[in-house]
């Protein structure tokens, strides 16, 4: 099982701060996106949005990054600190 956590505007758009997925690992970030959208079709525009960022174990990754069981996975919009 993989838990994906959401931040900021994305969390508000989904009205959810995380989702638990039953998915074979290792799997790519892209596979995680597809899995989430399969169970939450209304989230498609956000989870598959062009500007979505992903982090695994608190480091930003691209959608081909492979995720293992126990990894911390997060999705969020472009950052706006500073």
């Amino acid at each position, binding site marked *: 099982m993989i838990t994906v956590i959401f931040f900021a505007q994305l969390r508000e758009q989904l009205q959810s701060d995380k989702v638990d997925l039953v998915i074979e690992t290792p799997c790519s970030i892209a596979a995680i996106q597809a899995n989430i959208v399969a169970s939450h079709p209304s989230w498609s525009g956000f989870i598959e949005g062009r500007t979505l960022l992903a982090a695994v174990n608190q480091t930003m990754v691209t959608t081909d990054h492979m995720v293992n069981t126990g990894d911390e996975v997060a999705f969020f919009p472009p950052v706006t600190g*500073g």
Partner: protein
Amino acid sequence: MNESTVNKNLNNTNNPLDYVGVQQADFDIANEYQLMREGNQQDGAIVFFTGLVRDFNQGNDVTGLFLEHYPGMTEKALQSIVDTAKARWPINRVRVIHRIGQLYLSDQIVYVAVSGKHREASFDACRFIMDYLKNQAPFWKKETTKQGDVWVTALEKDKTAMEKWDKNQQK
């Protein structure tokens, strides 16, 4: 092994006065400046940057903002940026503080200070840290405006500013 860890292992120039902090509390510039100078006779140049909540942004009159962050990753991302700067430039002390939570007009948001023997490296490194922080540190601003609460939009110019550092390195 992730990129941040690699950088940390390669970097043997860490200074005990280096600091990366994410905090709700305000910071004091006089105190911070003192920490850059005390016991430091080798550095000829200190550059520092502070970011403040200003009254007008992205078309809105702003009265305050809430800074959301990703606990743990913010510190890690900032440390990785600092490590990269220290590996690239001959600099000495580096201190970075970023605030979180509810802030109001004119409040301090972020502080980056870099000291070094010469001004060129200190200027470059301070700006590099800000340009990367803007793109890679997981903070999000929600502004309180007269038109309601508005999430700040990430700007293309900030991405361009970061990407320029890659081009410079290839020269």
